């Protein structure tokens, strides 16, 4: 920002400005004598200016000058003097938070459905402060705080901060209360966005210069998720994720950041008796404990260490503050208090006084209370880190797979890449050696909360086997009495499963094969849907979610989609987002689809490989393909059969007169024992195939056969309605390009 240039002033007084004339100048003829002194100037420091203190300020003159016009009169103080004057210690902003909050309508935005009275009773938002002036704080500093943008403007969707999405009214209220209460136990029901509220409050604090550094402590499995949410909801803030080896952590603690994100385990390691151990080296402006039930045991080392953190604000987030005993709650409440450096953490006994304190400190909204504000369906992507053993297996499998691909040289096929992807996706579900699963750990944690709130859930997976799929998930979640629904069940057995889930509430979870249960079922008894692995097919995923999100559903539906950080899941997700493509069908066990959506370069690029020239599609070469229209129908079938056989498929030709529309049946067992069967109809028409042909094939496809797909092959392409029909029924359409790819 430029500073006034003395040579070229940006303002001047007009030369012909008339001085003020007395009304009867001829009679009195009085001159105006000005006694001027310098006016006051407060320069509000900017964080970006890298000044030494973000809340300190610089005043040119302590007392503003008064410009007088004679005759001089004493300065009356008739501006109402009950203006807000902040109080608080010089070094902190504790009381200033209240001062700022006093200017803000902390509860005016409360809308229907929120238990306003309870909130106000228990939390007493400081709206009517009339605090006494505190001369310990300089005028400049008081102004620096008072002149910050008000919270209601900052939290508003139309305000100067761009929010990733509009905060619901109850969330805005939560943010206001977090900002006005330096200590809070935010105990909203799961799915109401405690994380987002906390991040929004952090962002506003930082923008208002009321926070220099915050510490957020989360479960290891949620580290990735929190980092992503922080980047999404507070893009200006710099984040240091403290996680890794001791050397890395030493650097991460020192890195300049607004938010330090770490895990309970890391905190336990890094917070020692040494008062200059990294987490104790400073007084944190905010400390947030996510899933605060982690410190429910007051005697656990991690509980004691969390409470030792020097902090001005303490926010605990949990959907289940009271799991079993009052002692649990007491331990959490012991954290929900500021702690100055050198002070001893408070201790609570589980008694009436503690319960009264709990009422004052807790903000809890239930879904039923804010349901009117919620959309019918909320979808969340959950980013997770693989467990150590999963990561080890994953890396090993990936390295081996890449070596194999490289070893194939120019003979490498796209199908080999797809098989590797399939293998890696399975490891993202479960470690093949230990059976560990980050996704399962997260689901189990969430289910514990959900079940206590009488919710029920659907879990979808594309795999059905006992090692990586539906059976493995159900086996690991026995405590929730899961039921299994897969294509291998008989029709009557499937019906029994559905009825059992509907009628017996002891079954909290239904684990479903996406292909078998993605369509047609009415499962409004569940209001939570988990996609254990990604289909990368919005239509198919939506269909699955619609089992719960349909007419008759009385509660908002929450959908969680898992993506493992640093894995093939994340890489493919990223490519697809970048391409902004809507996938009709995508990599699954019938892996041919992916190459119709991603180029060979992108597929090989997933593993840092260059696509061999053979694998690269080329529009020029595609014109060199044979003229299919000159072939007879049987010749064309034979041509397609040869292509598939070259790719490792076992192909059976159906009898010409009894094919029911199916010309070829192709079988293949990919690695990991997944059987794939394609029912193929070949059409070498000169013009695009219409919808009737697709309908015909759809009519003869075997139903409920896992791993099977219908395919219509026509080099001339397909009509628009044929594509729509095929898309809805997940029938594959192969055109000239696919044939070219297979011939490569």
């Amino acid at each position: 920002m430029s500073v006034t240039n003395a040579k070229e002033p940006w303002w001047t007084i007009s030369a012909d400005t008339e001085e003020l004339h007395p009304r009867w100048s001829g009679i009195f003829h009085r001159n105006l004598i000005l006694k001027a002194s310098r006016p006051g100037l407060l320069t509000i420091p900017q964080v970006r200016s890298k000044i030494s203190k973000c809340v300190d300020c610089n005043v040119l003159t302590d007392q503003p000058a008064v410009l007088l016009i004679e005759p001089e009169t004493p300065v009356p103080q008739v501006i109402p003097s009950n203006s807000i004057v902040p109080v608080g210690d010089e070094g902190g902003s504790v009381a200033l938070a209240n001062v700022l909050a006093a200017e803000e309508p902390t509860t005016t935005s409360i809308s229907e459905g929120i238990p306003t009275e309870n909130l106000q009773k228990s939390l007493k938002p400081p709206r009517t402060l009339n605090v006494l002036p505190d001369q310990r704080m300089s005028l400049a500093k008081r102004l620096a705080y008072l002149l910050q943008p008000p919270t209601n403007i900052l939290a508003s969707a139309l305000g100067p901060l761009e929010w990733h999405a509009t905060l619901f009214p109850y969330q805005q209220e939560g943010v206001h209360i977090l900002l006005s209460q330096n200590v809070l136990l935010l105990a909203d029901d799961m799915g109401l966005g405690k994380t987002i509220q906390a991040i929004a409050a952090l962002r506003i604090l930082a923008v208002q210069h009321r926070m220099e550094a915050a510490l957020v402590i989360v479960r290891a499995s949620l580290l990735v998720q929190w980092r992503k949410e922080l980047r999404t909801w507070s893009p200006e803030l710099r984040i240091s994720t403290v996680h890794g080896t001791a050397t890395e952590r030493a650097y991460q603690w020192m890195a300049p950041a607004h938010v330090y994100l770490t895990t309970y385990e890391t905190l336990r390691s890094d917070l020692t008796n040494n008062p200059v151990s990294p987490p104790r080296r400073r007084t944190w402006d905010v400390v947030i404990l996510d899933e605060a039930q982690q410190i429910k045991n007051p005697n656990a080392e991690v509980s004691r260490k969390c409470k030792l953190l020097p902090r001005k604000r303490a926010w605990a987030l949990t959907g289940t503050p009271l799991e079993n005993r009052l002692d649990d709650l007491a331990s959490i409440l012991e954290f929900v208090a500021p702690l100055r450096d050198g002070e001893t953490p408070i201790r609570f006994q589980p008694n009436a006084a503690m319960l009264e304190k709990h009422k004052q400190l807790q903000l809890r909204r239930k879904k039923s209370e804010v349901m009117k504000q919620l959309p019918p369906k909320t979808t969340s992507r959950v980013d997770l880190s693989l467990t150590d053993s999963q990561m080890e297996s994953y890396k090993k499998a990936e390295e081996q797979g890449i070596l194999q691909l490289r070893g194939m040289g120019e003979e490498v096929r796209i199908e080999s890449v797809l098989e590797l992807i399939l293998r890696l996706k399975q490891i993202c579900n479960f470690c093949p050696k230990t059976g560990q699963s980050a996704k399962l750990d997260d689901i189990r944690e969430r289910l514990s909360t959900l079940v206590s709130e009488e919710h029920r859930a659907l879990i979808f997976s594309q795999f059905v086997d006992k090692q990586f799929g539906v059976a493995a998930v159900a086996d690991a979640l026995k405590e929730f009495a899961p039921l299994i629904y897969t294509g291998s069940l008989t029709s009557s057995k499937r019906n029994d499963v559905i009825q059992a889930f509907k009628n017996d509430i002891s079954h909290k979870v239904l684990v479903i094969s996406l292909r078998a249960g993605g369509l047609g079922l009415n499962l409004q008894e569940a209001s939570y849907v988990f996609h254990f692995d990604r289909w990368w097919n919005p239509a198919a995923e939506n269909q699955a979610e619609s089992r719960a999100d349909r007419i008759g559903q009385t509660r908002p539906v929450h959908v969680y989609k898992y993506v493992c950080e640093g894995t093939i899941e994340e890489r493919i997700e990223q490519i697809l987002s970048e391409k902004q493509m809507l996938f009709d069908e995508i990599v699954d066990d019938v892996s041919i689809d992916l190459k119709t959506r991603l180029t060979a370069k992108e597929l090989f690029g997933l593993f840092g490989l260059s696509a061999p020239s053979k694998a690269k599609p080329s529009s020029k070469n595609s014109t060199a393909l044979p003229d299919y229209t000159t072939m007879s129908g049987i010749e064309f079938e034979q041509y397609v059969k040869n292509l598939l056989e070259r790719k490792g498929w076992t192909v059976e030709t159906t009898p010409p007169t009894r094919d029911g529309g199916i010309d070829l049946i192709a079988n293949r067992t990919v690695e990991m024992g997944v059987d794939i069967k394609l029912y193929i109809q070949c059409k070498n028409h000169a013009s695009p195939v219409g919808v009737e042909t697709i309908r015909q094939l759809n009519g003869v496809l075997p139903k409920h056969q896992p791993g099977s797909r219908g395919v219509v092959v026509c080099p001339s392409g397909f009509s628009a309605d044929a594509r729509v029909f095929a898309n809805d029924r997940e029938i594959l359409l192969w055109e000239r390009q696919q044939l070219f790819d297979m011939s490569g």
Partner: protein
Amino acid sequence: MPVPFRDADEIEELGSAAYLKVVAVEDGVTYRGALFLVNARGEPLEFTYNSIETPNTYLWRKEDIRRHATRKLTTSLLSTCQKVPKLVICLADEIDHTLFCNEIHLSIPICRVAYVNEATPHSPSEVQTTIEDPQPVHLFWFPGKPADESTEHRLINRLVTSGLLLEPFNRAIIGIKEVYSPSTT
């Protein structure tokens, strides 16, 4: 050491807007003023303030005294202000068009804001535009409306869309009250 925000460059590029606020004290002789600079996100950058007392006399017309006091206040505020804003925003019912059209010349655009349902005297040399959302207001620009792609235009747009066209005036009042509260003085 404070840490710079990640979007600092973008905000820096848009510069600052100066909100000129003049408050008449209830005694009828004192005027207080502030020039409050905020950036495109509404963050305060600079707060210049001053007070002026006028003779409580019948020698001058009240309106003349007010205009004269406003000019003196504005002059003192501008002379003290250290940063050069991209534009100055003031309320049309507080600041006459003569102040910036005739008496004080600025090298940056002046924007006087008036509610549409109020009759506002303005100079023929001012350019009038109207904003409907979030609340309908007239903007009187002198010497002219900033060009569409100019930084000034982007800045005012950002302020309008962020609900910051008028809100900083409230903060300026809070600042003035704080400065001249009995505990301070």
